[in-house]
């Protein structure tokens, strides 16, 4: 090492100054008060900023999103077990035979109902092995198949002013088995992501009732709680719609 480098990195003697002995005491008192006041102010500020923290983070997540950035995909040997994380009771499968999804807020002004046969025959089916990440911290790698949300949006274009889609499931139940409709907001930019599927199959088999038969949202750029099971309605809206978990204190955008 040259002397120049050594001098640059080398520790230097601390600067010394001579002060009146009273100055030291006064400065100590002043700075103690200042730092104390600063800490109280910081805590008070944190209290008032608490509700904004999620909004800042949602804005950061939204700015990170790019339709061209793909989520990592995995091989079949990397598949892990996916648990049934229905928040309440798992619905009785009796809803499945009469199931259809209703589309509202379309450019045509019509309300469209599609059953699972319609969806699977009219749209091409895509497969992907992606990670589902839960807000709780666990994650699972699973093999999904289904139609691209983007293809459905092209076939049934939303009204021009629509920016959000309200995704809901009317078959959702609470812990004691009573109806507890589930609804989330998804921004249309995310719905158009090429890896956002309306999934019909898990691990090569049609979805079971535990995983949202017959159609669930599979949006890997969002937290698991946005991946609505047993979708019964898609409504395109201009303003961000209500969101089940946002109403329970969680964030709105949930982009990961």
């Amino acid at each position, binding site marked *: 090492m040259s002397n120049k480098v050594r001098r640059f*990195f*080398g*520790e*230097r003697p*601390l*600067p*010394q*100054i*001579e*002060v*009146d*002995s009273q*100055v*030291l005491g006064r*400065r*100590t008192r002043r*700075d*103690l008060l200042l*730092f104390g006041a*600063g*800490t109280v102010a*910081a*805590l008070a500020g*944190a209290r008032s*900023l*608490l*509700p904004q*923290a*999620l909004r*800042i*983070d949602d804005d950061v*997540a939204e700015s*990170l*999103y790019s339709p061209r*950035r793909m*989520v*990592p995909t995995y091989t079949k040997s990397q598949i892990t077990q996916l648990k049934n994380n229905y928040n309440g009771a798992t619905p009785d499968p009796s809803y499945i035979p009469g199931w259809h999804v209703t589309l509202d807020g379309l450019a045509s002004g019509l309300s469209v109902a599609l059953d699972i046969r319609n969806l699977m025959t009219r749209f091409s089916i895509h497969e992907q092995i992606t*990670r589902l*990440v*839960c*807000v*709780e*911290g*666990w*994650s699972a790698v699973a093999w999904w198949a289904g139609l691209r949300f983007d293809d459905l949006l092209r076939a049934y274009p939303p009204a021009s002013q629509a920016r959000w889609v309200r995704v809901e499931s009317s078959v959702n139940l609470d812990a004691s088995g009573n109806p507890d409709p589930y609804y989330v907001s998804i921004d249309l930019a995310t719905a158009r992501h090429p890896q956002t599927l309306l999934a019909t199959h898990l691990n090569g088999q049609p979805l079971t009732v535990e995983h949202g038969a017959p159609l669930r949202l599979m949006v*890997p*750029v969002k937290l698991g709680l946005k991946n609505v099971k047993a979708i019964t309605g898609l409504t395109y809206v201009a303003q961000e719609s209500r969101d089940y*978990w946002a109403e*329970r*204190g*969680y*964030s709105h955008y949930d*982009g*990961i």
Partner: protein
Amino acid sequence: MSRATTPCPEAISTSMPSKQPGVIVTRRHHLLVRWSHWLNVPILLGLILSGISIYWASPIYQHKPDPITGTFDLAADIGIWICAHVPGLHRYSSPPDWVYNHMSLGPGMLAVALRLHWLCAYAFMLNGAVYVAGLIAGGGWRGLLPRRTDLFDALRMFRYYIGFPLAKLVRRQWPHPSSNTKYNALQRAAYFTIPIAGFLSVTTGWAIHKPMQFHSLAAIFGGFDATRVWHFWLMWVFTLFVVPHVILVFADGWDTLRGMITGWSARVRRPEVTANEQ
């Protein structure tokens, strides 16, 4: 306290010869360093308390459900053990929640914990930038760099700290190892490690917070699940640093604590004395 038992005898006297009216002080810490140092107290407290509440929602250390208690979380087991063995806690209402009730915002607080964790995380990143700016502006970063002799010197310091209470008990002299640098080797190792741990906490935090947008970041740490383990243990680096840090500051005396408030130290080093001690 006699000089020989003062933890920092290399930093000498606060009284100057009578002909000098004032006191000589050294400038130890830049204003931004002091500011960010104290802000770290509420920020780290918020991060750790909310972080353990987030941990509760999906513990990384799990086992098959216990046939008797039904718990699967190691932290719940620790709570049960504490309530069974610590006097006065036998009638604690919910032993599996003991750890979370005492070291976090509490169980079932995920939504609030996430809000607080992100608020503190953004504050922590800003505060880290302020700290680095202070280190550069005051030149303090040079004092943190490791030296070739540090391993040996750190062992000497370690021996000193371990032996200090014993020497006190038997009223033996226990001289502080001499050093003519701002920090001793053990302090240097700690103060060099903590900013790195802070940087890694932020990096692993982003990797598990945005695992799709930053999936390559998680890959560096071994994937999403492994990154959660990194993030958890980095929390322990801070926790294990803070305990001796606070104890030693109080053991060292008011001048050291005041130094982080005013930036000034009245212990002025006189090189010739240090030389004599060697």
